[in-house]
């Protein structure tokens, strides 16, 4: 029942508003080729356009979420090639995605893989997951948010240590540091992510979208700007039918029926 049009991804049918996207390059521990990122962008386009999809869960295999970028591909690119790197637009496509993305991480989550996971809004991981930015071992450095999103998630000291030594951290430390929100048994990572996704998918989609935007806004503006944005977003929701329904259902002690309007 999965979409067969993708070479490097397995895209499952939408279930209760949640779409599961599995990175599928087992021969290379899901190393992120440009082709894979391009396919992921396509999936994102379709998911954004679809009213049926409320949340996307992104995962890899039991062994690796993604073990990094494709080194061979990268080695072929010189300075000019890097300047014109097509990957940039694909990363931005994920950043621009307005619906929640949950990363369900098992095993290796390294380099570009860690950066991809950090593009997600919520990260949960199996207890055997490990996160790292080993680029420094190759004489390069993270190039898709590894010095920035990691910094905002775990703070300076641990970011410096990870980026400058290239040594990974285990799931437990990632949880303590705030990189991920939950640790599960590895076998349950995906089902737990789907369950969280379904909870979110049951909420009013406009509220979810604006709340996500407000939180992301808060990550890169000052508090006053963030609070102002939050207030505007909050105000916008005052004009929606979902708000009326949500409050009415709460008062009447019943489940709300949101329509996304």
């Amino acid at each position, binding site marked *: 029942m999965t979409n067969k049009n993708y070479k490097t991804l397995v895209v499952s049918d939408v279930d209760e508003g949640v779409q599961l996207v599995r990175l599928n390059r087992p021969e290379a521990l899901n190393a992120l080729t440009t082709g894979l990122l391009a396919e992921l962008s396509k999936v994102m386009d379709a998911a954004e356009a679809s009213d049926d999809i409320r949340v996307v869960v992104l995962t890899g295999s039991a062994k690796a979420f993604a073990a990094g970028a494709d080194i061979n591909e990268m080695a072929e690119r010189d300075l000019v090639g890097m300047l014109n790197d097509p990957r940039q637009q694909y990363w931005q496509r994920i950043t621009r995605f307005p619906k929640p993305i949950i990363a369900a991480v098992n095993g290796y989550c390294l380099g570009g893989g860690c950066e991809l996971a950090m593009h997600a809004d919520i990260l949960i991981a199996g207890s055997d997951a490990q996160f790292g930015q080993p680029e420094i071992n190759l004489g390069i450095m993270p190039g898709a948010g590894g010095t920035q999103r990691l910094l905002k998630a775990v703070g300076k000291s641990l970011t410096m240590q990870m980026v400058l030594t290239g040594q990974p951290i285990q799931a437990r430390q990632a949880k303590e540091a705030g990189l991920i929100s939950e640790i*599960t*048994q590895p076998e*349950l990572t995906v089902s737990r992510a789907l369950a969280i996704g379904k909870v979110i998918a049951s909420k009013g989609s406009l509220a979810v979208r604006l709340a996500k935007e407000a939180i992301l806004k808060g990550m890169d503006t000052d508090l006053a700007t963030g609070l102002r944005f939050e207030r505007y977003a909050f105000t916008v929701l005052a004009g929606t039918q979902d708000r009326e329904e949500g409050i009415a259902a709460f008062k009447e002690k019943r489940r709300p029926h949101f329509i996304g309007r």
Partner: protein
Amino acid sequence: MNFEHILYSVDSGVALLSLNRPSALNSFNEAMHLEVQQALKATLKDERVRVLVLTGEGRGFCAGQDLSDRNVDPTAESPDLGLSIERFYNPLIKQLQAFPMPVICAVNGVAAGAGANIPLACDLVIAARSAKFIQAFCKIGLIPDSGGTWFLPRLVGMARAKQLALLGEPLMAEKALEWGMIYRVVDDQDLREEALTLARHLATQPTKGLAYIKRALNQSFDHDFSTQLDLERDLQRMAGQTQDYREGVKAFMEKRPAEFKGE
């Protein structure tokens, strides 16, 4: 498979790994570590195997680190003993604890240093009556490694853990049993067969369920009560999805012995 420093065989669902450097009381050198790693890897890949038995050849079980292999020269620059722990002992201990099937350790003789703690990382320890456990580390200025400082207080209590670790006195098998550190003591000549009998029984049991049980018990020390209840819920969820659970319930209803496949 052919090894130089260990013996490894698989029979009736049981993988038997025996440390085989009897002239050095089966102490670990780098080559033996590598062979053990290779054998454990093979065990995990072998779908027939549902129980692992660890034991030693000759009169000792394992005397820990082979000190001649570490090239300890008191006049040279201080060695980094953490390296071999990082590279070999800690991964071994973690792997034995997390091994997705029961691990039986048959302690056939002296178990000293890391060799005294490796059994504690296993699930069921059977010892020969003449076996003794020696936390020998303190005699040469070191600390109990391979999980010793973690396992001992949990198994025998802090007072006895300190006694063992600070004095380095041998603990005889019978005493270890009395203290709750090991599962059983048997006569020396019966050890191998008793361990294998137990292993053969476990090899007919619901392997996945057993693996979840040991996982839950091992993690209980790290968890608070409600986290552990959550873990039980999750593992039970997984156990409920196994074929063996179906078979177990079906056999119970049909009043016949269950035939578990470990799936």
